[in-house]
């Protein structure tokens, strides 16, 4: 039995998390994890909700791929935080992921409409 809290939030389709993070960083430049999580929620008007923590393994994988870099900085509240930034490779990846996403969505839409 799932918790009531999660019920009215749709889980994001797998793989799109990268796209969301890339898109967020592309729009806003430097961000730390909490900001990224908030930003994704805001954009998706709280409908698409990540299990917030899963952001971090995803960020690690993106660090490995070289899509983002991270460096330590200070928040407005004067706390130490790790800031992530898009790299040139990441920017290119964003294009790839976007077109892929659109292709998949397009296909699904066509399937739905065909029914």
């Amino acid at each position, binding site marked *: 039995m799932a918790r009531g809290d999660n019920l009215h939030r749709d889980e994001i389709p797998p793989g799109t998390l990268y796209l969301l993070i890339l898109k967020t960083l592309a729009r806003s430049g430097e961000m730390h994890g*909490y900001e990224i999580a908030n930003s994704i929620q805001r954009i998706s008007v709280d409908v698409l909700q990540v*299990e917030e*923590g899963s952001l971090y*393994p995803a960020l690690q994988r993106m660090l490995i791929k*070289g899509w983002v870099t991270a460096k330590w900085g200070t928040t407005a509240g004067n706390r*130490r*935080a790790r800031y992530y930034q898009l790299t040139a490779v990441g920017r290119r990846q964003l294009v790839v992921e976007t077109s892929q996403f659109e292709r998949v969505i397009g296909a699904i839409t066509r399937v739905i409409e065909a029914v």
Partner: protein
Amino acid sequence: MNWLREVARRLRMLMHRRQFDTDLEEEMQLHLELRQQERLESGMTADSARAAARRGFGNVTSLKEKSHTAWGWEWFEQLVQDMRYGLRMLRKSPGFTAVAVLTLALGIGANTSLFSVVNGVLLNPLPYPHPDEVVTMAGWFPGYGESSISYPDFLDWVRLNHTFSSLAAYRRDTFNLTGQGDAEQVAAMDVSASFFPLLSVNPVLGRNFSSAEDQLGGPPAVILSGGFWKTKFGSSPDIIGKALNLDGTDYTVVGVIPENFYFCCSSTGFRLSDVYVPIGASKDLPVRDRRMISTWAVGRMKQGMALAQARADMDDVARSLGVAYPDTDKDTGIVITPLQQVMVRDIRPFLLVLLAAVGFVLLIACVNVANLLLARSTGRNREFAIRAALGASQGRVMRQLLTESVLLAMAGGALGLLLASWGTRAALAALPSALPRANDVRLDPRVLLFTLVISLAAGVLFGLAPALKTSHPDLHETLKEGGRGSSGARYRAQNIFVIVEMALAVVLLIGAGLTIRTLVGLWSVSPGFDPHNVLSFRVGFPPSIGNADASTTRASLRQFTEKISSVPGVSAVSLTTGAKPLDRESGLIFWREGQPKPPNEVSMPYALWYRVGPDYLKVMKIPLLRGRFLTAQDDANSPGVCVIDEDFAQKFFGNEDPIGKRLNFTLVYNQPLQIVGVVGHVKQYGLDETANSPIQAQFYMSPLQLPDDQLKTWAVSVAGYVIRTQGSPGAFASAVRDALREFNSKAVLYAPETMDHIIGRSLASRRFAMILLAVFAALALLLASIGIYGVISYIAGQRAHEIGIRMALGAQRSHVLKIVLGQGARLALLGLVIGLAAAAGLTRLMITILYGVSPTDPLTFSAVAIVLTLVALVACYIPARRAVRVDPLVALRYD
């Protein structure tokens, strides 16, 4: 390039993984706190705000682990963990560790050592650029086979071929060096100007020969070997341009080649040359005459040329030479062989057999260590059962065990490498002439890789049995019973170990036994003469003797013989200027008088040509079978005579009586020589000479009967002596040297060697193989008996409880002894039978290195069977006796 950066990033993470974990922790902490803050501000209580933040975040520990493993290092971290644990376990039982590591070190060390030899001799390319382009080129003569060639033929090869970028001729020679202290003989090589450039040897000083120097009438030039330059001239750099007086002619030193330059092929043997002179400038008859074959050749094929193309090309060359010079070249061929193959042709089968043998030693070592591990893992059953009960997967436990065994193997490998580097050097130093290319034997990266690979393989091999066994533990039984079992099936692995060890040891011992029998057999083969108390040496006569008129030369040769005879203790002396058993080859073509002369020289038969003094038979103790031998009266003034050996008589006269018949040797003599006697056959090519050896027929004649114009070529310039001495012949060299010098200060004695030593040298490769095989077999025997002892001790120890009960119930000691002993003996016998069967199959592969003994020699097989049975019985008896000595009360109480 991106993947490279990715690897770099992953590696950076591995280096700083502690930092990584704390960073991640801090980051997540911040996230949680900020979220909590937000909830607080929206009016939640502190507790529910924290709970909500956590709920929204997910499982922190699992997310941390996911972030960590995303970098792909968990296998490494587990390995480090396993290794740490393994090292701790090994440290905890130092006795076990020491025995296992030492056993493996012996096995791996022996393998590394032998592989470094195989690697240096067989696998490594020759130290020349593009070594695969370099080939040796020999002539092929019908009725004789592969042979040296004539220099004029060589020049035609150079002119006519289309597939070689360069050809070079070489030929062994000697010179008398005067004007540098005492007169001395130097070993020389006559070479083409292209010789060193072809092999890419650059002079360390000066230059190579010019083509002008490599022609008749060219300015006399000489190149020194690095070693000669060092010992003779103290590596002085201003040697270039100086004159060296060789055989009375001044040669200008134009260059020095590196000291490590080493070229050995077919007829040149292992002796290094002191000096090199251009062959093209030589006026010697054997160089200028197409009928004299004393030159060898090497060639470098054009780039990308296949061996088959070169062979086809040279076949054409041989055919056109046959047409142009039918008398000397009709139906002859040209044999092309890769240089590397020629250099290792004789040693290859020995090394391969040794490599197999040493592999067996390692297998035995592995079985021993596997047995130790198995005994230990049985003791550790509880540990593994508990780990499994706590949720460790079987794969994880197996990996742990394999890590331990690989650790052991690595330690063994490291120690083995030390043993090998020391042992190889010792073996090569002890047997210097046994191996060609001995200089190329070293521990290079390939050898290190080999050691690493066999260590890993050994670790997995001997670790697998115990690991597999512990991976199917009966948890319930083990935990309940306390690890003590009584069922016989438990020892199946150990039983197999005993059988395998026994079988391997049998095969090795039989292999060693057969080579020992071969060598012992060869030692007792008669070479056809008596080598004991015979000293052989060569003499460099002063140039004045060769340049004098013929009768003076003959007189001088007689006087030298007399001078040597006058040395006290010398009982017989003979000049030898032609073929010499196991040392020098010289052949001559002939045909029988009264039979039609063969159409050309190529189709005439060859005979080995011994030019010796009248006392030769006395020195060598060769039996005279019929007629008489040469006498002092057979000189220039009497009719030419010769003596043939029994093989000659058999092959060319059959049942006829050869005495009184005459032979034509038109290459040298205008008149035929009359056969006056028949002597016993001598094994010219060594004790292992077979009927396949090139020339079997032999004949003897007196050098004094050589025609005047041939005297210098066939007697003076290649003179040597054999003397029979009373007492140790080695001690006579200096007395004879003094006598010669007293007689003529420019005469030089060199290369003295006892006949026994020459024969010993001819068996060096076999001795090398025999000694190593014997060492390996001894090692195998030792390891196998330790192994069998270990297994039986272990089983007896495990059965102490049962034995205690039996004894308490009144069983006789002797009866129990018989049970334990019988158990071991049965296994050993089974191993013995399997080993004998395997050996019968495998020893057939050794046939090339055996001589005079069948690969299934019953004596060797039965001797090995008896020895191993005894060893196995002793190895079983000791632990069995200890088992029955145990006080039943102690055995029963101990639980």
